[in-house]
């Protein structure tokens, strides 16, 4: 197996019912920057999906396209079988944007009431505030809130009515650990009520713990699409670290079997492998004598780095 095996692009999984969101070969550029390339995926009812990727991977662009805040250069974006704008006007989509500002010089209660007034099938404002845990700060001015409180107000705006799709862009930024846990608790309730949840994040542990499906984006493409466990397994599940004496020939090392990635820094060699036993065996077979040899499993974080690094290496000339 070579690095190309890492570019797993899963098709729609858990395919039950008509897709909630459907991207068909979507492209979007800003000037010379190709933000999203041939994006093609579907989300199905009841899924909790994490959109994972490094900064600049195209997460925010993808969400903007999904919400109709930007238009695709080519390809189709459908939400509940209609245009994103129509789905929003019908009150089917709630969104919490990373950059979503709040109205200033108003109280929390006033802004929540506004959101309820604008939603075609809104819940009572008091109930929305209760769910979001902002009843105690209802009379505070919006511009005097802490980062975490602001996020909860945004969450209230995204859940002003029974939205069938909830889109969250890095929702827990600025929240402390307790608030973060409470937030995901509230989010799980939404998912258990049968709603589809899509969230962009760079917290890998969040994707690992909360999502039942992870879509890895890199340079505007879908690199991997599957459960967190599948991604870990396919990314090169083992990590091998050792030191070498004398001249290190990186080319020889790259010829080892089952490699996902090789990194040499000074005397130390770090390898990611799909089959650590085979790799180590071949290492000795080359006549090399590795010292301080360690073999360990990969977390989703390393798996993620392995996948994106491999893709970057392959795209080398594309930079």
């Amino acid at each position: 197996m070579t690095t190309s095996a890492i570019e797993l692009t899963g098709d729609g999984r858990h395919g039950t019912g008509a897709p909630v969101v459907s991207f068909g070969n979507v492209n979007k550029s800003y000037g010379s920057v190709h933000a999203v390339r041939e994006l093609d995926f579907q989300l199905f009812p009841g899924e909790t999906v994490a959109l994972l990727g490094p900064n600049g991977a195209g997460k925010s662009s993808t969400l903007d396209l999904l919400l109709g805040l930007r238009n695709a250069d080519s390809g189709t974006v459908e939400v509940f079988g209609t245009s994103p704008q129509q789905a929003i006007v019908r009150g089917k989509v709630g969104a919490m944007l990373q950059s979503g500002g709040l109205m200033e010089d108003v109280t929390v209660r006033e802004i929540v009431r506004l959101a309820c007034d604008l939603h075609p099938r809104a819940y009572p404002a008091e109930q929305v505030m209760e769910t979001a845990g902002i009843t105690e700060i209802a009379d505070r001015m919006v511009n005097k809130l802490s980062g975490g409180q602001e996020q909860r107000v945004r969450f209230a705006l995204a859940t002003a009515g029974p939205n069938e799709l909830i889109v969250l862009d890095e929702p827990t930024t600025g929240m402390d650990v307790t608030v973060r846990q409470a937030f995901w608790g509230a989010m799980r309730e939404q998912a258990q009520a049968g709603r589809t949840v899509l969230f962009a994040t760079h917290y890998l542990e969040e994707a690992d713990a909360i999502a039942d499906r992870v879509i890895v984006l890199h340079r505007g493409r879908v690199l991997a699409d599957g459960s967190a466990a599948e991604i870990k397994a396919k990314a090169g599940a083992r990590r091998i670290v050792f030191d070498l004496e004398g001249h290190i020939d990186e080319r020889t090392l790259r010829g080892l079997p089952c490699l996902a990635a090789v990194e040499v820094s000074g005397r130390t060699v770090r390898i990611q492998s799909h089959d650590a036993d085979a790799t180590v065996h071949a290492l000795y077979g080359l006549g090399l004598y590795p010292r301080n040899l360690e073999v360990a499993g990969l977390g989703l974080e390393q798996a993620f780095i392995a996948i994106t690094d491999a893709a970057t290496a392959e795209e080398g000339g594309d930079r």
Partner: protein
Amino acid sequence: MNTLVKLEIKRTLRNKKFMFFTVLYPSALYLLIAGGAKTSETIGDTHLSLPVLFMVSMASFGALTAVLMGNSERIAKEREKGWVRQLRLTSLPGRGYVAAKIASAAVVTLPSIIVVFLVAVMVKGVRLDAAWQWIALTVAIWAGSIVFAALGVAIGYLATGDAVRPITMIIYFGLSVLGGLWMPTATFPQWLQNIADWMPTHAYAGLGQAIELGNAPHTKDIALLAVYLVLFAGAAAWLYRKDTRKA
């Protein structure tokens, strides 16, 4: 949508600094410009004195300042902060946003117009022939300012960040000077007068000047303002929905 209109008005009233400045600024400017002029001097072939002329000019100019500057800057700021993105994720139609912004601007202009009139009467001893003229002037200047409130919304959508203020300033001074809000257009060369005739500010000032003279406003001025209103408000609503740039 009504909640948004009410909320926009409420938070404008809460912004004490903004209210204070925009309400008092036209009166201060009036005293500065009309300060030395005598009530007995009349202009050209009219029987209007400078203090009367400047009263109407400054009330119009003040209203224009408040709505144009206030709206364009606040909207550009709201776009930068992402509030407009959040609003676009609701079922609010474009006209709702524009209507709310115009309504909140109108709240500021009414007191600023009335304060200029009060100062003119009390400090400069300005008198008009009939009581209806005061009411008509207030209504005309107030209603006319809506045209510029819509222009302010449109500018707030066209420009971003640091560019908003200079762009607004250029449009604002250009419109004010060309429309004759600062000096009568009769002093302009002919070619400039021809341009001035079609300026929304000229039509706006014309409303007040006709009433000052005891006449009804010219149909042409009203029609011209109506056309500009449709144009500006339409552009603003279109830009609100169209705005796909980083907001």
